[in-house]
């Protein structure tokens, strides 16, 4: 494999559920990411579903996804011996990623100042629900709670406001926080490259969520208006027309009426081919402003058109005409997508202990050099204890056994 830009970067990861994606972003880019887990295993190993429905710390599918290309060691930081070993590890580390409650690491003598003394260029990033300061600092959160309090949830849901807003699937809040953390850490690496200086980054999931509200914030901060959630479309100040319609084959299509002059003509030609343009050729629709006024009627025509075509016909038909529509597809359809096959996006990752391979989501970005790659499946708990403690840190096998018996690793 080609060398990676981060092949000389070592990352220690001390995370639960919130921060683990930040480590993945590094690991799949080729950094040496060591996940330091409590002897019982990280919290995220307990998230179902599990392979064959057998709950086990090495069988969580969610853990598998978020921990590719990492190594795992176990270490009890709460005991002095464990903390001392951790300090030795930090002395060889470039980046420490952690998501413990504010104050928890300093209480163990592992705060940034203390660790930086061992490794002057250390970059440390704390990813927490509300950051290290401010009145909410110690409040409890979760993905859902952060999406609510940070603003994204307000814009997600249905036209019927008797129903509560609904979160999108995925741990979106955790992802957003980790993405921002990663941007910050890479910037910190650029600084360190030039000056040798490390620094401490305080990342707040609340703020990261606030940033991920698209038009909602400027609409209020600039114009003083609040957007309202709508089924399947942008939250907006004034209600807009439906865009999601059922197709002949029972699938759904995400559409948009093309109001621009050229696109409008193409759209009409397409409707005409099916004999379904109804009255849209009337003079009154030739003016774009007028089309906007008559959008409800146009939307009805569009809905009937969708109902008589399959989702695939509509998707490709629209895209070939330059219209950006999309089929609503299930994850199952995505796994078998021809486009992804042609690009080699879905990658097969071997799980040797199971004698099987599984298909994983691959690179969302491609490089001419320094490739993204899943280098290995997620580590088994403590899989790299011997490699790290004995081969790299110089503990003897007997010492490792003693540490293990003492419950330190």
């Amino acid at each position, binding site marked *: 494999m080609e060398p990676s830009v981060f092949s000389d970067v070592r990352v220690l990861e001390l995370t639960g559920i919130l921060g683990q994606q930040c480590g993945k972003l590094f690991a799949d*880019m080729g950094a040496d990411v060591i996940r330091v887990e409590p002897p019982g295993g990280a919290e995220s190993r307990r998230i*179902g579903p599990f*392979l064959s429905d057998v709950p086990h710390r090495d069988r969580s*599918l969610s853990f598998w*996804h978020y921990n590719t290309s990492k190594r795992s060691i176990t270490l009890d930081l709460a005991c002095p011996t464990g903390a001392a070993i951790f300090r030795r590890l930090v002395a060889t580390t470039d980046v420490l990623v952690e998501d413990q409650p504010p104050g928890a690491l300093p209480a163990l003598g592992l705060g940034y100042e203390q660790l930086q003394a061992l490794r002057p260029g250390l970059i440390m*990033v704390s990813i927490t629900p509300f*950051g290290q300061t401010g009145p909410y600092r110690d409040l409890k959160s979760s993905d*859902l709670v952060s999406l*609510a*309090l940070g603003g994204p949830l307000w814009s997600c*849901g*249905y036209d019927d406001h008797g*129903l*509560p807003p*609904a*979160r*999108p*699937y995925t741990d*979106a809040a955790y992802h957003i926080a980790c*993405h921002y953390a990663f*941007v910050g850490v*890479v910037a910190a690496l*650029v*600084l360190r*490259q030039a000056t040798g200086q490390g620094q401490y980054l305080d*990342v*707040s999931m609340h*703020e990261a969520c606030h940033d991920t*509200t698209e*038009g909602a*914030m*400027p*609409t*209020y901060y*600039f114009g003083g208006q*609040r*957007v309202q959630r709508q089924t*399947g479309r*942008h*939250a907006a100040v*004034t209600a807009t027309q439906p865009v999601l319609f059922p197709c002949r084959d029972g699938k*759904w299509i*995400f559409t948009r009426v093309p109001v621009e002059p050229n696109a409008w003509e193409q759209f009409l030609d397409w409707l005409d081919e099916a004999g379904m343009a109804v009255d849209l050729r009337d003079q009154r629709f030739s003016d774009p402003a007028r089309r906007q006024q008559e959008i409800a009627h146009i939307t009805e025509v569009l809905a009937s058109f969708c109902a008589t075509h399959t989702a695939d016909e509509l998707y490709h038909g629209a895209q070939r005409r330059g219209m*950006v*529509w999309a089929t*609503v*597809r*299930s*994850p199952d359809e*995505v*796994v078998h997508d021809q*486009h992804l096959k*042609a*690009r080699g996006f879905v990658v097969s990752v071997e799980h040797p202990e199971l004698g099987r391979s599984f298909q994983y*989501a*691959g690179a*969302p*970005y491609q*490089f*001419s050099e320094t490739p993204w790659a899943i280098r290995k499946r997620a580590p088994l708990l403590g899989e790299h204890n011997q490699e790290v403690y004995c081969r790299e840190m110089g503990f003897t096998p007997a010492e490792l056994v003693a540490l293990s018996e003492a419950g330190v690793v």
Partner: protein
Amino acid sequence: MKQTRLLEGIRILALEQVMVVPYATAILADMGAEVIRIEHPEHLDDRRSGPWPDNIPGEQWWNEGGTFAYWNRSKKSLCLDVYTPRGRELFLKLVLLSDIVVDNFRTGTMERLGLDHESLANIKPDIITLTCNAFGSTGPYRAYGSRARTIDSFCGLSSISGYEGGPALRASSNYMDHTGALNNAFLLLLAIYHKRKTGQGLRLDASMYETGIQSIGPALLEVQKGIVQERTGSAHPYWKAPYNVYPTQGTDQWIAISVSSDEEWARLKDAMGQPEWACDARLDTVPGRWEHRKELDRHLAEWTSHGDHVTQMHRLQQHRVPAGAVYSASELLQDPHLEQRGYLASIPPEEATNSGSRRYAGRAFADRPFHMPKVETRMRPAPDLGEHNQEVFRGLLGLSAQEIARLKQEGIVLDRPSANDLASPPQPGSGMGAAL
């Protein structure tokens, strides 16, 4: 602490629109990179999309839009038609003086313009290019387009979001544009790191579709286990209960509550004053709460509706139960936590140096959610259209005043929208969503 202008001296030429690339380069511009937006006077969608200060597009509406200001702050604007031979030639001269060229055109556009990575690397071997488009530059869908919301649908995210029995949900807030933009930001930083380490440029290709799929990575593994994901509203898909969004006093006011352990459940019971329905042994275990989650949700919704969302949140948080009011923008603007952390930024009136910022100075901007003590990040106004024409053409390329005048005459360089655009200004109140 001394702060470094980290990216000072890095010049980025940006052929960018909407958000997925503009927001990325804005993050770099705040860190000191010189980002020059190359704008076409007839493609002003970004500048038309509002929202407007006080809801009124002003005389120079093309410089005043809110999303434009958010995603293009701290940049420069060069209004140059790169589709003309002379425009392209000037662009290439700028490439020789730049480090990075970014675009989010459809696949094939940069090739047609002769501005693809190979063409640029021929004249500037260490150039870094970033292309971000819908489906990547290979594969059968490569020429297809997307917007963040169509990616939600196509990547599998929408189909598993929404209420049981209801339609697919859009992961509103353009989650894909945000995530794509953050990917683009770190890709550019990584490329700078790589170049300083090796002296080499890089070609970066980002696909929005594949970014979307990464975001539901665990669902792909579940498919292989034979799990068919159902929509569950805000409820947790597997085991956490109570975990949902509940009504509170007031119209369209809600609170999110998530309980993930027996201890948190015990604390929730305390917070509610141990009501009879909750003191039920069946609910004392994770599997028990999961099995009876609908009943639990009903009872809890009854309890939450006896107070307003903020009061209920603090009542629960005092007992260390994860709970959060569903905040809208108006509440976030007054959020004491954001205020105390100095999170919201604005362009101070004394730094409002152009026509756009004179209208929106003092209004809140979302700042970055990571605090970096040693890196200066500062927002400056978004550029007026063509504001930096003179600076770039004279200062950088050394063109004479006459040459610039001729380019203007020929319509290759402009600093005002086209006659068509001027004839149809955006309407008061128009903004995000209205035209979408």
